[in-house]
């Protein structure tokens, strides 16, 4: 039982750090995200550096974990096992890109904005949650 408390606490701290990172990076500002996606206009390359920073640190963690029998809190490493390039992957990523490009919000920044009390963030998150549910229903129909 005690282990679950530590897992919950560490997940909370990770969520907090993730959100602070998004705010610092400028990812929580849709105008900045759109400026990054607008390569034909006045391009702001800042957000490429977010990916570089994130990937370098995460790469080290994933590499380290290959030599560990289990996680530091004694759980197994939940390696994603899917490798196939499927239709749902391609269609889903296309629709996701369309939505992201329309307003400049993806799930993490949307939750941060909604948490700050911004009505735009709240509205987006409500419809995002409906989208999750619809996709689950479609997936259930397909399988």
């Amino acid at each position, binding site marked *: 039982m005690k282990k679950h408390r530590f897992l919950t606490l560490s997940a909370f701290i990770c969520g907090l*750090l993730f959100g602070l*990172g998004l705010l610092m990076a400028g990812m929580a500002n849709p105008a900045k995200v759109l400026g990054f996606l607008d390569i034909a206009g006045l391009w702001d390359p800042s957000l490429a550096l977010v990916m570089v920073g994130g990937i370098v640190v995460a790469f080290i963690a994933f590499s380290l974990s290959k030599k560990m029998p289990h*996680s530091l809190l004694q759980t197994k490493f939940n390696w994603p096992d899917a490798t196939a390039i499927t239709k749902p*992957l391609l269609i889903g990523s296309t629709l996701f890109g369309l939505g992201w490009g*329309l307003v400049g919000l993806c799930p993490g920044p949307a939750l941060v904005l909604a948490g700050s009390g911004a009505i735009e963030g709240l509205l987006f998150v*409500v*419809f995002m949650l409906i989208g*999750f549910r619809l996709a689950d229903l479609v997936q259930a129909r397909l399988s």
Partner: protein
Amino acid sequence: MDWMNFTPQQSLLGGLFIGLATALLWLLNGRIAGISGIAAGSLTSSGAERWWRLAFVLGLVLSSWVWLLLAPLPEVQVTSNYQLLALAGLLVGFGARLGSGCTSGHGICGLSRLSGRSLVATVTFMTVAMVTVFVVRHLL
């Protein structure tokens, strides 16, 4: 290039924070920091599986308040109207779930695990997002 709005230090530092959060969730909990998967799972899973996901989402939701303890919030500019926000929210939620991940799960975690599947997903959504912005800003 938009040198006026270019923020290399802040964006790199923010990226390192995102990487740190991803690294800690993996090394401590053995979980992938994919926001869409975690947020969707926080509503559909049960028991301990649900708690860590809810806690992670709560951390994200409260982050701007923790930020406010230290500094004023950075600028947020939303130019889209409510109809467009609702439509985009629906597309982002549906697409991320159907495609098994978003910018965090595929873009950060997947690429740093050298997953070919995540590379395909990331290239797809980045390209579509850039084309969308191009059409909206330069063609319509």
